[in-house]
């Protein structure tokens, strides 16, 4: 990415990123975001992350971007996983063990059916 030399440069880059995000959303891009702060990791977010990556590989799921984020401060519900499918509303899951993560990938990401009993409303 180019160096920023003025406010205009900054807004241009913001526009570019925004366009990129919009294009992804319109194309039905799937994002799975795992809360990976120290607290999330302590609650097992690394295992969850590993399970998600393995599941994607084993079941040959394509077009899924797995990202990490910081913590949102809801320690009771860690590990927290967010699923974004295109421009549909974001779904947050709490206490996502590796097993729950696999269920989310199979039911929600692949099947389009939200795993209701693990949803948390932020």
């Amino acid at each position: 990415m180019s160096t920023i030399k003025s406010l205009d440069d900054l807004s241009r880059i913001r526009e570019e990123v925004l366009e990129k995000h919009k294009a992804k959303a319109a194309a039905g891009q799937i994002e799975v975001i795992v809360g990976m702060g120290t607290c999330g990791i302590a609650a097992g977010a690394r295992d969850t992350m590993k399970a998600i990556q393995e599941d994607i590989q084993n079941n040959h799921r394509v077009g899924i971007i797995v990202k990490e984020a910081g913590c949102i401060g809801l320690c009771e519900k860690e590990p927290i996983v967010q699923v974004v499918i295109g421009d549909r509303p974001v779904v947050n899951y709490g206490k996502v063990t590796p097993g729950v993560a696999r269920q989310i990938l199979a039911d929600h990401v692949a099947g389009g059916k939200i795993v209701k009993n693990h949803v948390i409303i932020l």
Partner: protein
Amino acid sequence: MKTFRSMVLVSSDPISMKRGAQDVFDRLQAEIKAYGLDEEVSLAMIGDVGRHDALPLVIVYPEAAVYGPVNAEDIHLLVDEHLYKGRIAVDLQASNRELSGKIAWLNTRKGTLPAEQRIVLRRAGIIDPTNIEDYILHDGYTALGKALTESTPIQVIDEIKKSGLRGRGGAGFPTGTKWGFVAKEKSVKKYVICNADESEPGTFKDRLILEGDPHSIIEALALAAYAVGADEGYVYIRGEYTLAQERLKLAILQAKEMGFLGQNIFGTAFNFDLHVHSGAGAYICGEETALLESIEGKRGQPRTRPPFPTTHGLFGKPTLVNNVETLANVPPILLNGATWYRSFGTPSSPGTKVYTILGNVNVTGLIEVPMGITLREVIAIYAKGMKGGENFKMAQTGGSSGSIIPASLQDTPMDFDSFGKAGVALGSGALLICNEDTCVVDLAKVLLNFFRTESCGKCFPCRIGTQRAWEMLDAIASGRATLKTLDQLMDLSVNLYNLSNCGLGQTAGTPIKDILTYFRAEVEAHIRLGVCPAGVCNTKEAVH
């Protein structure tokens, strides 16, 4: 010791006294005696609880009923209804006025997370901290760009001053004023430092900001550097925060690549370079002058002040040291303006505060709410009440350097001024909520054990005082103490405060002062009866 079923507190601040609090107290005493309840009900005076609209106040525990304004004539009814018949005297209750300045927003809450007011945490957990694009998309670096191209350093400082932002590290010093001190120093070299040595037990707000939104600290430091005329900065991160360090280092690399750090930022003459310095596990290095010593490569011990870091700081140069949370407030203030920021919180402490909630509550975690919320609200709304429906006994604020807040102060708005008036401290934002199974002596002992091991040993009041205080508390807990010990302990806490060189020793006496002020009866029970009312301490270790 007598066990009391009820505790009655009368406010005794100057306004209450003027309005007849002493009469109220005397009448209460007489009425309680007349009803033959003086063996069951304890009566005491308390300081300012922040309800200036209804003084004098009478608060009755364990129900925590707040009555006010109370006249001497009302006392008969109050005692008859509440203390004798055991029902709340509704007619005398203080109006259920909003206890804190801004609370209407609570009604807007939905879902499991009540509506918070997130300013410094607005991006944490939302954006990818390893991706600078995400930060830019969420208004990142816009405040810096605007300030550099459209404002002078003086204007930036004025805006911060107008916003009323106060340091979030614990002391609450006005940030704009501090910036002004550094800015007016004439020096070719100046430094800005972010104090991320968050070592207060139970506090993890800074870690969350650094892990979730590292670029906001880079942007804020660049803004601070521009305002005070510095060209180099350090982030002093606690050694245990490896993930935060990793993410910040990565963020610095990305910022350098895109020209937010380095030479001629935003095409202006402003240059700024940033380093990450890891702490090595010493609590004392969170004290700003010890932190400076540590960066200089010396043993982490506080300096004698004056001179203050604003004039003689890192390597003898004027230096600005700000806490992570303080800095995280800077970009939003400059982006949205001081007036916007002042719409949150209370007039004396605008903005929000990040609290970490832990202890005997149903939901622990981290919240960001406006300044001026009360402890009762935090426990009821965010912590979802006490675990197992137990009674709230006290809270310990600010890791170890805060105060012990008794239940009688749970309606005091949590902002710097209200807490200051009530004689307690906000600290760094940890709220350790304790139920009645917690022994105050044991709690103070744990805190003093922390202080005695973390004292750097430079000045003797702290080095020896914290050790002796711990020994005395240990003696009380194990039944070896006499009543004289309590006087000595109180004396020691005053000396710790007055004679210590830095904040560590000065605050080490606070828990002692607090337990002897608010929980004297419980402490004395250990000595007079050889019993720990909470059933925690083993007072039978020694024979009387």
